[in-house]
């Protein structure tokens, strides 16, 4: 026998529904934080970084990557 609490389907469902409320609340809190993340100010990247890619090209300054 398992040492874990064993229950009936009804007992499980009651506990599961309770937990679901908490899960939904947490989900909404996550959505709010995702929104706040998008509200962070954008910081212009002013340093000129150089990158090397697999095909041997060198990219830089950084603006060149977006071009």
């Amino acid at each position, binding site marked *: 026998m398992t040492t874990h609490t064993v229950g009936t389907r009804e007992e499980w469902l009651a506990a599961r529904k309770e*937990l679901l409320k908490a899960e939904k609340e*947490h989900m909404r809190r*996550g959505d709010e*934080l995702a929104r706040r*993340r998008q509200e962070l100010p954008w910081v212009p990247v002013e340093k000129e970084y150089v990158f090397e890619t697999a095909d041997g090209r060198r990219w830089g300054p950084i603006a060149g990557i977006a071009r």
Partner: protein
Amino acid sequence: MPEHKVGTREEWEVARDELLTKEKELTRRNDELAQERRELPWVPVEKDYSFEREDGTKSLADLFDGRSQLLIYHLMFGPSYEAGCPVCSSIADTLDPNAIHLRARDVTLICSSRAPLDKLLAYRQRMGWSFDWVSTAGSDFHRDLGFVHTEEELKPFLEGEIPPTVNQMAEACSTDVVGYVSEGPGLSAYALSDGTVYQTYVTTARGLEPAMGYYGLLDRTPMGRHEEGEQTSWLRRHDEYGKT
């Protein structure tokens, strides 16, 4: 110039630190919920379900494959579908490479669907997945978990205006709306102890987001998910992006 608020590195750091405090709170709350999930009572599964797997007919206990825990993703691929649901397929893309890591933690991860096994295996090959995929064939496994709906139950939904996403997905699966929405997605978890299988956890809808890796990543991009106001889903099967 971007329309977004631009700031100095110092301004960004102040705002970032504030957000970090909230992110840590959320992470700790997530840990608490995981604990609460594990504290749910275990329910012995008393029905004898049978599944069709590549190597024959299997019981639920067989699906553990020698491990003590089993996670099943209920992938929407009903008997009338010609291909799996694109959203479920995007979830399977997240699940597949994780199965090997879960095995190292004594968890077997598989998918289960109601379509015949040969359809599932052909689609698995197309998608390049390697997880075990079982067909519930004629058993009530998905129905008992609440992932199958009868036409009678769907009546109020079918009589209303069908959301464009549902039409889009039904078409993508080469089935009709009734056939498509008869299936529901879900994740269920089981423990095997002394030969008894226990159901421990079940979730659906947004409870599946941990298996949608791209959402967590999009939540960290400048534009986020930006799905508001979109009538249809942007998600495609991974081999269908760029196709019309």
